[in-house]
C-alpha cells in the first residue's frame, strides 16, 4: 500500500508543475504580460514596480520569467496584492479555509440527501414515485446554482428574513459554530443539491444492479425483506464505485463552489478569484488559481488512495 501511495503522490508533482506552467503562460495573454500594466502606471511608485519586476522578471525571456516566478512561489513569496496591500499568500490562505467549509458542507448535504434519495427510489416499488424522483433528479442536475442560489437568497433571506443575507458570520461577533452553520446552511444546500440529483441516480442504479445479483435473489427467494436486503447486501457493494464517483466530482464541486460563493457573498477562494480578476490583481489571481488546482489534485490523490485502500486490485495495476 505504501509503495502505491508513494507512486501516486510522486506522480502528482509533475501534474502540478505542468499546470503552473500552463497558468503562467495563460497570464502572458495581456499584451506584454500583466506586470506591464503596472509598470505603465505613472502613479505607481518605483518601489512597487521594482517588486513586480522581482516577482515576474519583466523584460526577461518567458522561460526565465517562469522559473523566477516558480522559485518565488516555492519560497513562499507569492507576490503582493495591490488590491489589498498585503502579501498575496496571506490573502489567499485566509480564504482557503472558507472554501473548504463550503465544499465540505455541500459534500455532506449531497452525500446524505443523495444516498437517502437513491435508496428511497430503489426501495419504492411504485413506478410513479420512481418516475417523479427521476424527474426531480434531472431537474436538480440542470438547475444552475446561481439561479437557485439567487432565488433562495432573495426569497428566504431578503423577503422572509429566515437566512442571513450572505457572508460567513455575523459581523463583529466572535467566531461561533452555530453562527457559522447558520450562514453555511443555505449555500451548502444550494451547492449540494446539484450533487444530490446525480448521486441519488448513481446510488439508485447501483442498488438496482446489486439487487439483481444472484445471491440477493436467492435471499429474496428465501423470504428476506427487501429493505433489509437493500441495506445489508446491496449497499456496501454500491459504496465502492460511489467513492470513485465522489472523487471524480470533487473538481466540479470546487468549481461549483465558485459561483455559490459569489451569490452568497461567501469569502472563499472562488469569489476571491472573481474579484481579483475584475480588479486586475494578478498576483492574487495566480495564487488563487494555483491553490484551487492544488485542491483538485489533492482531492484526486486522496480518492486514488482511498480507492486503493478499498479495492486491493487497484494497487497492483
Amino acid at each position, binding site marked *: 500500500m505504501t509503495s502505491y501511495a508513494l507512486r501516486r503522490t510522486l506522480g502528482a508533482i509533475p501534474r502540478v508543475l505542468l499546470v503552473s506552467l500552463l497558468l503562467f503562460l495563460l497570464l502572458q495573454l495581456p499584451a506584454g504580460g500583466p506586470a506591464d500594466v503596472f509598470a505603465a502606471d505613472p502613479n505607481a511608485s518605483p518601489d512597487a514596480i521594482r517588486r513586480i519586476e522581482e516577482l515576474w522578471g519583466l523584460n526577461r525571456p518567458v522561460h526565465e520569467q517562469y522559473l523566477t516566478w516558480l522559485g518565488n512561489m516555492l519560497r513562499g513569496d507569492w507576490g503582493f496584492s495591490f488590491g489589498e496591500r498585503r502579501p498575496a499568500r496571506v490573502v489567499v490562505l485566509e480564504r482557503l479555509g472558507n472554501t473548504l467549509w463550503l465544499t465540505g458542507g455541500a459534500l455532506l448535504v449531497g452525500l446524505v440527501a443523495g444516498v437517502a434519495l437513491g435508496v428511497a427510489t430503489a426501495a419504492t416499488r411504485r413506478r410513479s414515485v420512481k418516475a417523479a424522483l427521476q424527474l426531480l433528479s434531472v431537474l436538480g442536475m440542470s438547475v444552475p446554482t446561481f439561479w437557485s442560489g439567487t432565488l433562495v437568497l432573495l426569497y428566504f433571506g431578503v423577503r422572509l428574513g429566515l437566512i442571513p*443575507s450572505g457572508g460567513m458570520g455575523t459581523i463583529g461577533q466572535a467566531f461561533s459554530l452555530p453562527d457559522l452553520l447558520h450562514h453555511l446552511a443555505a449555500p451548502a444546500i444550494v451547492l449540494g443539491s446539484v450533487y444530490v440529483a446525480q448521486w441519488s441516480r448513481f446510488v439508485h442504479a447501483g442498488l438496482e444492479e446489486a439487487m439483481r445479483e444472484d445471491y440477493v435473489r436467492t435471499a429474496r427467494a428465501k423470504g428476506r425483506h427487501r429493505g433489509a436486503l437493500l441495506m445489508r447486501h446491496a449497499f456496501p457493494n454500491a459504496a465502492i464505485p460511489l467513492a470513485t464517483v465522489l472523487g471524480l466530482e470533487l473538481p466540479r464541486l470546487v468549481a461549483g463552489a465558485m459561483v455559490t460563493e459569489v451569490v452568497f457573498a461567501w469569502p472563499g477562494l472562488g469569489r476571491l478569484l472573481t*474579484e481579483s480578476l475584475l480588479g486586475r490583481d494578478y498576483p492574487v489571481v495566480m495564487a488563487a488559481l494555483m491553490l484551487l488546482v492544488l485542491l483538485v489534485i489533492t482531492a484526486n490523490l486522496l480518492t486514488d488512495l482511498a480507492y486503493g485502500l478499498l479495492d486491493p486490485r487497484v494497487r497492483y495495476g
Partner: protein
Amino acid sequence: MLESIHHLALRRLLPVVIAALVLGSAGAQSRVTVLSPQEPATLLPHLDLLTLTHEVQQLIFDCLFVVGEDGDYLPNLAAEVPTVANGGVSADGTTYTIRLRDDVSWHDGERLDAADVVYTWRLITDPDLPVPARGVWDKIEAIETPDPYTVVVRFADTNVAFLGTASSDSCFVVPEHALAGRELVEDPFNRAPIGTGAFRFEEWQSGAFIRLSANPAYFGGAPAFDELVVRFAGSQAARTSLQRGEAELALHIGFADLRFAQGLEAYSVEQAPDHAWWQFWINNEGPILADRAVRRALTHGLDKRLITETVFGGVADPLDAILPPSHWAHADDVRAYPYDPEAAASLLEEAGWTDADGDGVREKDGQRLSLEILNIAGQADRRQVVQIAQDLWRDVGIETVIREIDGASFPPTMSSGEYQLAYGWFGENQEPVFGLWLGTNWQNFADEAALDLLRGVSSTVEREARAEAIRAFQRTVAEEAAMLPLSTRPLLNVVSDRLDGYRPSLSGSLYNAHEWTVR
C-alpha cells in the same frame, strides 16, 4: 417577622442587583453600523482618490480645519482659524501661521505636534509616491516650526485656497513617528492605521467590513457609543440591511435605491452638501478622440435629460459645464450641446467618418469608430447610464464596448491611460484646486494656456477675478468638448431616525460622528 425578612432580602439582593446592572451596562457594546457601497483599497490617507475611502478615513484621522454645516471654516487640530484679522494670515496672503492644539494624541499614545504636519506635507508632495490629488500642498515653499505647536506655512505666491485644502479632500494629518522612513505603499499601516480621530482602528475583514472602536481620549469629546462598523454592501445587500434595520447610515446610495429608501419608515434620505457631478471622462490623447468632431458628436448624441429623468428619477439636473450650479464659480454660459443626433451625425460625416459598409458603425481610413467605455461594476444606475449612452451613440454610428472593473482599480486604470471613455463622478472643493485638471489629468487635456488660467486661481485674491478665470476655463473645455459632463450628482445618504447629531458638511458625512447619539 415578615418585614425583617424583606429587609434582609433587600439588603442582600440590592448590591447584587446594582452590580449586575453596572456590569451589564459595561458589558453591552453599543455599536453604530455604516454601510458603504465600495471598499477602500487602503486606509493610509492621500493614496486613494475614492470619496468613500475619504469618508472612512474621517473617522480615524483629523484635518487642521473642518468646514461647518454652514460652510464656514472651523478649527480642528488647529486651535483657531488663521485670518488676516487675527494675524494668522499675512497681509499678502503668502504666509499662514497655525497654532496647533497641545492636547491631541495619536491612537498609540504619542502627542501630535508640528513635526507631523511637516511630515504630512512631505508625504503629499513626495514625487515617488502615487498621490493622485495634492491640493495646494505642492505650492508650499517651506514650512517652519518655531515651536512644537506652531506651524508657519509659506507659499511662493498669494494663496487663498489653503484653508479649503486643509479642511477637506487632502487634509488628513498623518503620524510622522509611525511612517517616517518606511516604504509606504506596502506598509502594514495601510491595513492598520494610527490616527488622531474619534475612532481607533480595530479590524479590517476584506470584502466584509472595517471595525473601529471609540477613542475615549478624543480631543473633540469621546463618542457616545463604543463601536463603529463600516460594512461594505452593494445595492442588494444594503437594501436588506436597511430593511432589517441593521444600519444607522447608508452612504452614497445609488439612484436605483432612491425610491426604495424613500419608502423605508425608519429612515430618511438626506442630501449631503457637495459640489459633485456625473461625467464621462474622455481620453483626449486617444487616436479617435483626439478629433474634436468626434468629441462634439458624442456630446450631441447623448440625451442627458432622458437619463436624468429616468435613471436619476428627476433628482439630478443635466449639466453642460464641468462645475455644478451649486458652486460659486459655475459658468452658466458655456457652449451647450443639446441632444441632436442629426447634428452629431453630420459632424461625423464632415470629419470623414462614414458608414461605407452599412453595418451601422462608421469607419474612416479603415478604422472603425469603436470606443471602449470603462465603468465601475456593482451599482445599477452606473450600468443603466452607460448602456443608455451606448444605445444612443449606436444611433449616430458610434460603436462602444463596455468594460466593467471594480472601484479600487478605477484610479490606477485611469492614470495608466488605458481607457478611452470612462463613466464616474467627481467633486470639487469649495475653494477649487482642480485636481481633475492639474492633478490627475486623466483626460490628458493639453491646452496649457487654459490650464494656466487655473493655475493662477489660488493666488488671485479677488473672488470675482477668480470666478472669471474659472468660468473662462469652463467655456474653453465646453468649446473643445474635452470632457462630457452629464448631470449634477446629489450625494444621498440614508439616515436612521434613531440617529441624532448627523450633520454632514463639505468636510464629509462622518466628520462629526463623535457627536452622534443613537436612541
